[in-house]
């Protein structure tokens, strides 16, 4: 987005920014499809304790490796646990880890990016070089190392993913900040004696928020995948708590006899990631004036 041609400032700038994005978003059907699917998955995961037909942890060894049937819609795993119930419960972990890690990364990363862009000079240099260094690791490898070092549990998983994504937000927030801070109205704010914090929060943030939201939605999709990968490798939340990655790992061992374990759980990851990508793509079109007319 060219920040300069669409600057938002003054009282109510933040609300206007959000209203503009929502308006543009409304004209994009695919993003609505993404949002509806994503919300549906959230509702299903939240309602897991109510709608899951079976306990996700309790084993029914006599019913082990049952194919999909009326009794077990998506079949059972090697311990006779209902795959559909475990997918519902596993979705909670996936959503919790991805949304929490990206929210943390969004707040810290955008703040760092805006401060770096606004302050410039050595502060900018230090922050952005540090971000470049963090970007030097593949996201998955960085996540892998952090979880391996800190220990595999829910909190560390969230920290690891957040840490790998912070630099992306810092970069995306810095660019429009640099463009906007040179404009007359920011100069006027300074002349009026506004504090740097106020200028950044009230007058610069509205110009950054659009791109940050796009990135948040696209990276939530990536976070879902990374969480699944780490659980697949065995560095996720420990069993017997159901996680999608862990279920696929277990299912893979029975791929010849019971492929449904992998197929349906993988499908759950795919649908969630696809919905977030649809949403992010639509948001991007809504936020970027150049793409709006495409």
């Amino acid at each position, binding site marked *: 987005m060219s920040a300069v041609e669409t600057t938002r400032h003054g009282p109510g700038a933040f609300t206007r920014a959000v209203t503009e994005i929502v308006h543009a978003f409304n004209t994009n059907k695919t993003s609505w499809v993404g949002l509806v699917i994503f919300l549906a998955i959230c509702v299903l995961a939240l309602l897991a304790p109510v709608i899951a037909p079976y306990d996700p942890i309790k084993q029914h060894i006599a019913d082990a490796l049952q194919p999909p049937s009326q009794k077990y819609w998506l079949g059972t795993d090697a311990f006779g646990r209902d795959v559909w119930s475990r997918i519902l419960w596993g979705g909670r972990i996936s959503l919790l880890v991805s949304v929490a890690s990206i929210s943390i990364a969004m707040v810290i990363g955008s703040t760092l990016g805006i401060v770096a862009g606004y302050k410039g000079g050595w502060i900018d240099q230090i922050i952005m070089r540090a971000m470049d260094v963090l970007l*030097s690791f*593949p996201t998955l490898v960085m996540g892998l190392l952090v979880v*391996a070092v800190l220990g595999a549990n829910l909190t560390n998983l969230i920290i690891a993913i957040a840490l790998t994504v912070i630099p992306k937000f810092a970069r995306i927030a810095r660019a429009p900040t640099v463009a906007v801070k040179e404009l007359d109205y920011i100069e006027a704010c300074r002349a009026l004696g506004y504090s740097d914090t106020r200028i950044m929060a009230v007058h610069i943030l509205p110009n950054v928020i659009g791109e940050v939201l796009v990135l948040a939605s696209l990276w939530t999709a990536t976070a879902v995948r990374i969480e699944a990968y780490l659980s697949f*490798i065995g560095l996720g939340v420990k069993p017997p708590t159901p996680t999608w990655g862990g279920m696929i790992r277990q299912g893979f061992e029975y791929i010849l006899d019971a*492929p449904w374990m992998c*197929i349906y759980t993988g499908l759950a990851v*795919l649908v969630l990631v696809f919905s977030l990508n649809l949403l992010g793509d639509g948001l991007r079109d809504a936020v970027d004036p150049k793409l709006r007319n495409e």
Partner: protein
Amino acid sequence: MLWYTIRRLATTVPTLVAVLTVIFIIIRIAPGDPAIAVLGDNATQQSIEAMRERLGLNQPLGAQYWSFLSSALTGDLGKSLVSGRSVLGEVLAVLPHTLDLTFASILVGIVLGLPIGILAAVYRNGAIDYIARILSLLGLSFPAFYTAILLILAFAIHHPWFPVMSNPKLGDPVDRLYNLVLPAFSLGLIMVAYVARTARSSMIAALGGDFIRTARAKGAPARIVVLRHGLRNAIIPVITVIGLYLGLLIGNSVITEIVFNRPGLGKLIVGALEQRDYTMLQGLMVIYAFFIVLTNLLTDLAYGLSDPRVKYQ
């Protein structure tokens, strides 16, 4: 270009040192004693002390840092705690497999992604474009293990055309290629999606240019206009995207290698994690970081070559 290359190389060294520092810090902030982590909770005090000595943990932190930095920069990554062999030697033994996989998946990305992107741009807003956009977004969404598992189910189990496990013999090119097909398609799918999306948008931009109108006005056939005039101008962003997402491929290759039980850096790192092979883990992080820094350097240099303006910034 020479001055630009020197300047870019000069910034690479501090980046590499900073990256190595981050690795050092991450490995050191691990809660608990790494020697105990390696040996397990039941280890005797004597063996713990011996391991601390072996890992250099009884030295002051500054000395440890200096020793780590100087060894890493000279290519000495230490010895594996499990096998006792040199970390660099173990890495070099499996590296050709990971490189095969990475380059083959880039090739898959270009061969499939480029035509899809071009067709979508040429038939913009039509059925082909719509299908291509949805498919490429779907391609972006496929988790690496899911693609791998579906390919195994379809082309190794249902139709046993390819091996379930990919264990190529390095000396046999045919075997190497045969074992590469499924993993390369599995890892390459995401690249197909990225290349198709980028090719589409850059082709749309190129096809809107005045020179295209001129070419059409001169009566050039549509195929020539698209492939010779359009594509030539649209290809640079595609190259950039491939450079940008090489890091993603290297990361995802970990998963692909595990699913296909294929030798490579990914399997090595997971093995190191499982066996608590502390020096191997540290060495592999150095190798991964080195690759990413090198990729960024090469992408920037390629960019400087293809766009003269970059050099003067």
